[in-house]
C-alpha cells in the first residue's frame, strides 16, 4: 500500500510518491507526467480522462468538462458559477442544496464526481508506475480555497476510492518540495500563478517548521484568462476577414482557445509566432473559412500586463497581512505554468528584488511537496518525545479550602513577594470564567496591586522544568537557576534541530535535548485559515470569530446574547470572508441551539466555539451558558449536504468505463 501526493490542478493533475527517500513523479504509459484535468464523455459510453479527453475538446466541447476546479465547492448563485457559464461550452444546472451539476450525455454529475474521475485516473497511473495499490493521498488545493471547496475536494478523493489524509495548500507544498529552511531561518515568498488561480503565500521557515505568515489569492486569475484574451484577439481577426464571429459558435471558439494556448506557450520561447487554423467555420455554400494569425511576444505582453499587475496587488495584500516589507524575503519560489511567461519572471524579480527560484519543475513542484507531506504523515515512528510539562507560577486549580503550603507549586524564579501574594490572595475557582474572549474573563477580583511592575512573575524556563517536578525541592531549584543562563545550543545537537542563529537564552533548550533521542526529518506545516470565519449578528452584520490567516489548528470562543424577547432558539449562521456585511461572504451553514430559557432579550448568553483542526476543517459548538446545553455541528455545508452520498457516487463511478 502506497501513499501519494496529488496536485489536482485546474489545468493539469500530477501525482507523486516518495520511494526510498526519493520523490518520484508518476508517468503514464506514454511517459507523460502531466495529466490534463479534463473529463470527456464519449458517445460510446466511455469516460475519457486526461490527454484523450483534452483532444475531444475541439470536437465535442459540450460533453468535455475542463477547469472544474474553478467551480468546485461554489454555490449555484455565486458570481463564479455565473461567469463560468458564460465561458464554458458544457452545460451546468442547479442541483439540490445549491450545488451546481454538470450535464453530459443526458447524465447529471456533481462537480466532485467529475474531479473524482481525474483523481481515479491519477491513482491508476500511480499504481501502474509503483506496482502497488494506492489507497491514501494528500491532495493540494489553492491556499485561498474556502471550507466548501476543501470539503468538496475531499469528497472527490473519497469517490475516487482514496483516503484523503490531508488537504494542504499548494504554495506550502511547493516550499516543502524545495526543502528550504533546513539549515537556517529564512523567509520565503511563493508566487503561484497557475491555469486558473493565483496565490501568494509568505512563509517563515526554520529547521523543519514551515510557518505560513500569510496567504492571499485570486481564484479567478490564471493562464486561462490570458488564453481567453488571445482567443478574443483571434476572434476579432476572424471577424475582420470573414465577417463571421466565431464567438457565436461555442465549438469554433473552443478551437480558438486551444490554439491560443499554443500561441501563448510558444511565445515564451520565441519572439513571434504564426498559426494557420483550417476550417474554423463554414461560409456560404460550405466554403471553409481559415484563420491566419500572427502574434509577437510584445503583443502578448501587452495583453498579459494587466493580468500580471493584478497578481502584485494580491502579493501586496499578503505582505500587509504578514506585516513584512516586500524586500524582507530571502527567496521567491515560482509555481504554476504561467510563471514560464518571461514577463511574469521579469516582474516578479522587480517586485521582490530577488531572482526567483525555478530549480524544481513549476508544473510538478506542488505534487512533489504533497508527496513529501504524505510521507511525513506516515513516518510516525520518527516522532520527538514530549518533555515534561512546565510548572505554572500559579496553580489555580488548587482547591481554595486546601491551605497546605506545599500544594502550591511555585517556580524557581518567582520572586518571593509574588509567592506571598499568591498565597494570600488565592481566589475561588475561576474555571467558569476561564473561557477566552468572553466578557466574563475581564472581571478582575480586587484592585491591581500598587506596584504592578513586580507582579509579573518570571515564567519557568524549560531549563528549569527539566529539573523540577511539581513539588519543588531546593536542590533542583538551585540547579534550575544555574541552567537558566543563556547557553549556546550544544554542539553535538543533531542537524535536524533548528540551529537558528538568532536563538537566545529566552528560547527553550528542551526541544534540543529531546531531539537527541530521535531526529525527525519530517517537516511540520503550520498553516493558516485563508479567510475569516464569521457569525451573523443583529442587522445582518458579521462578527469575526476566527481572523483571516489565523494559525491552525485553533479554537476561539465568543459570547453572544439573544436579540429578541422570549427567544428560545438561536440559529448561529456561519460564513467565511472579509466583508463586514454577512451576506457579502460565502455562507457555510448554520448551527441551531434550542431550549433556551425564555427571557428578555440580552439576558441569555450563548457561547459560540469555533474549532479549526489541522486540516482546516471547521467544527462549531454553541452552548447556552446558563444551562450548559450544547449544540454541536459539523456544519452542514452548502452544496455538499444536498448532493448524493459518497457511496452513491462511488457506485456510479464503479460502472463507468474509464479510459
Amino acid at each position: 500500500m502506497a501513499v501519494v501526493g496529488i496536485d489536482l490542478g485546474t489545468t493539469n493533475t500530477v501525482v507523486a510518491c516518495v520511494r526510498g527517500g526519493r520523490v518520484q513523479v508518476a508517468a503514464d504509459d506514454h511517459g507523460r507526467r502531466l495529466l490534463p484535468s479534463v473529463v470527456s464523455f464519449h458517445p460510446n459510453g466511455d469516460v475519457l480522462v486526461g490527454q484523450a479527453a483534452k483532444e475531444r475538446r475541439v470536437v465535442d466541447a459540450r460533453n468535455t468538462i475542463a477547469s472544474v476546479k474553478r467551480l468546485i465547492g461554489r454555490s449555484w448563485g455565486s458570481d463564479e458559477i455565473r461567469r463560468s457559464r458564460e465561458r464554458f461550452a458544457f452545460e451546468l444546472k442547479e442541483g439540490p442544496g445549491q450545488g451546481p451539476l454538470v450535464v453530459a450525455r443526458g447524465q447529471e454529475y456533481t462537480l466532485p464526481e467529475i474531479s473524482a474521475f481525474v483523481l481515479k485516473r491519477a491513482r491508476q497511473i500511480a499504481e501502474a508506475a509503483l506496482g502497488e495499490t494506492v489507497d491514501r493521498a494528500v491532495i493540494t488545493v489553492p491556499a485561498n480555497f474556502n471550507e466548501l471547496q476543501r470539503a468538496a475536494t475531499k469528497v472527490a478523493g473519497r469517490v475516487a476510492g482514496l483516503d484523503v489524509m490531508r488537504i494542504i495548500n499548494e504554495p506550502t507544498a511547493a516550499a516543502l518540495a524545495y526543502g528550504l529552511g533546513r539549515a537556517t531561518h529564512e523567509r520565503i515568498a511563493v508566487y503561484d500563478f497557475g491555469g486558473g488561480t493565483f496565490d501568494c503565500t509568505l512563509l517563515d521557515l526554520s529547521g523543519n517548521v514551515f510557518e505560513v505568515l500569510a496567504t492571499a489569492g485570486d481564484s479567478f486569475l490564471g493562464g486561462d484568462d490570458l488564453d481567453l484574451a488571445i482567443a478574443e484577439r483571434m476572434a476579432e481577426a476572424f471577424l475582420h476577414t470573414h465577417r463571421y464571429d466565431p464567438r457565436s459558435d461555442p465549438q469554433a471558439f473552443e478551437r480558438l482557445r486551444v490554439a491560443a494556448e499554443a500561441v501563448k506557450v510558444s511565445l515564451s520561447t520565441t519572439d513571434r509566432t504564426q498559426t494557420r487554423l483550417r476550417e474554423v467555420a463554414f461560409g456560404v455554400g460550405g466554403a471553409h473559412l481559415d484563420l491566419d494569425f500572427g502574434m509577437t511576444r510584445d503583443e502578448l505582453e501587452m495583453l498579459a500586463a494587466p493580468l500580471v499587475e493584478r497578481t502584485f496587488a494580491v502579493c501586496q495584500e499578503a505582505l500587509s497581512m504578514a506585516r513584512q516589507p516586500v524586500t524582507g524575503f530571502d527567496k521567491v519560489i515560482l509555481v504554476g505554468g504561467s510563471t514560464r511567461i518571461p514577463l511574469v519572471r521579469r516582474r516578479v524579480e522587480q517586485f521582490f528584488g530577488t531572482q526567483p527560484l525555478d530549480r524544481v519543475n513549476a508544473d510538478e513542484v506542488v505534487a512533489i511537496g504533497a508527496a513529501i507531506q504524505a510521507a511525513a504523515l506516515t513516518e510516525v515512528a520518527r516522532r520527538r518525545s514530549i518533555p515534561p510539562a512546565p510548572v505554572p507560577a500559579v496553580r489555580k486549580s488548587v482547591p481554595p479550602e486546601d491551605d497546605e503550603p506545599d500544594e502550591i507549586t511555585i517556580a524557581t524564579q518567582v520572586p518571593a513577594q509574588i509567592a506571598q501574594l499568591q498565597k494570600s490572595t488565592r481566589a475561588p475557582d475561576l474555571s467558569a470564567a476561564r473561557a477566552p474572549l468572553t466578557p466574563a474573563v475581564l472581571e478582575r477580583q480586587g484592585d491591581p496591586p500598587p506596584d504592578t511592575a513586580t507582579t509579573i512573575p518570571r515564567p519557568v524556563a524549560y531549563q528549569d522544568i527539566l529539573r523540577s517536578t511539581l513539588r519543588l525541592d531546593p536542590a533542583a531549584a538551585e540547579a534550575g537557576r544555574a541552567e537558566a543562563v543563556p547557553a549556546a545550543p550544544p554542539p553535538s545537537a543533531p542537524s535536524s534541530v533548528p540551529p537558528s542563529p538568532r536563538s537566545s537564552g529566552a528560547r527553550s533548550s528542551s526541544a534540543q535535548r529531546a531531539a537527541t533521542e530521535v531526529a525527525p526529518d519530517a517537516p511540520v506545516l503550520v498553516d493558516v485559515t485563508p479567510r475569516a470565519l464569521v457569525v451573523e449578528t443583529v442587522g445582518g452584520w458579521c462578527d469575526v470569530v476566527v481572523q483571516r490567516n489565523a494559525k491552525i489548528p485553533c479554537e476561539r470562543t465568543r459570547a453572544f446574547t439573544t436579540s429578541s424577547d422570549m427567544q428560545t432558539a438561536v440559529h448561529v449562521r456561519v460564513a467565511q470572508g472579509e466583508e463586514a456585511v454577512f451576506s457579502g461572504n460565502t455562507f457555510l451553514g448554520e448551527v441551531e441551539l434550542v431550549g433556551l430559557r425564555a427571557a428578555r432579550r440580552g439576558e441569555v448568553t450563548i457561547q459560540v466555539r469555533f474549532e479549526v483542526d489541522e486540516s482546516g476543517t471547521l467544527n462549531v459548538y454553541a452552548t447556552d451558558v446558563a444551562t450548559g446545553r450544547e449544540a454541536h455541528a459539523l456544519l452542514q455545508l452548502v452544496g455538499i449536504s444536498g448532493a448524493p452520498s459518497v457511496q452513491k457516487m462511488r457506485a456510479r463511478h464503479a460502472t463507468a468505463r474509464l479510459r
Partner: protein
Amino acid sequence: MSQASVAGWLAVLDDLTYYELFGLTVDASADDVRSAFHAFCEIFHPDRYFGSPEADRIGVSTIFKRATEAYLVLSDAGLREHYDAQLRGAQGTRPQRISFSSRSRPPASRSPGPAKLEDSVRTPTARPFARRAEELIGAGDLRQAKLQLVMANHMDPQNEALETALKDLETRLAERR
C-alpha cells in the same frame, strides 16, 4: 509516546501563561517568540501524531491549539501589550489567557466617525492609517477613508473601535449610492 507527559501538560495547561507555555520570559524578543514557537511545533504539532491513538491526538491537539493562541498574542505587539497589562492587573488570580472586552454589537450607530479614532488604536502600525482615515472622513472622501480604515483594521485586528468605524463608514457609503 508517553501518555503521562501529555496528561501532565493538559493538567497544567490552564494555569500556564503564554510565556510559560513556551518557556519564555516576559522580555522575550519577537525572534525569541518565533523560535520558541517553532521548537514547540516540532514536538506538539498534531501532524506528528497522525497515526496515534485518538486520545493522544486530541490531547496534543488541545495543547497545540493553546500554542497557536499564545503565538497569535505574543507575536502581535498590540495584543501582547494588552495581555501583559492583563497579567499585571490581575493580582494572584491571573487570567492566563487573553480576554477582550464584551463586543455586543448594537445596530450600527448613525453618528459620524468617532472624535478621536487614533486614540483607540493599539498598534503603532495601525495609527497612521487611522489618522489618515479621520482626515479623509473630515474632507468627505469616504472611499479613500474606507481603504485607510481597512488597512488600520488589518494592522490592529479585533479592535472594536476600528471595526465599528469601518462599519459606520460602509453604511454611509451605501446610503450615498
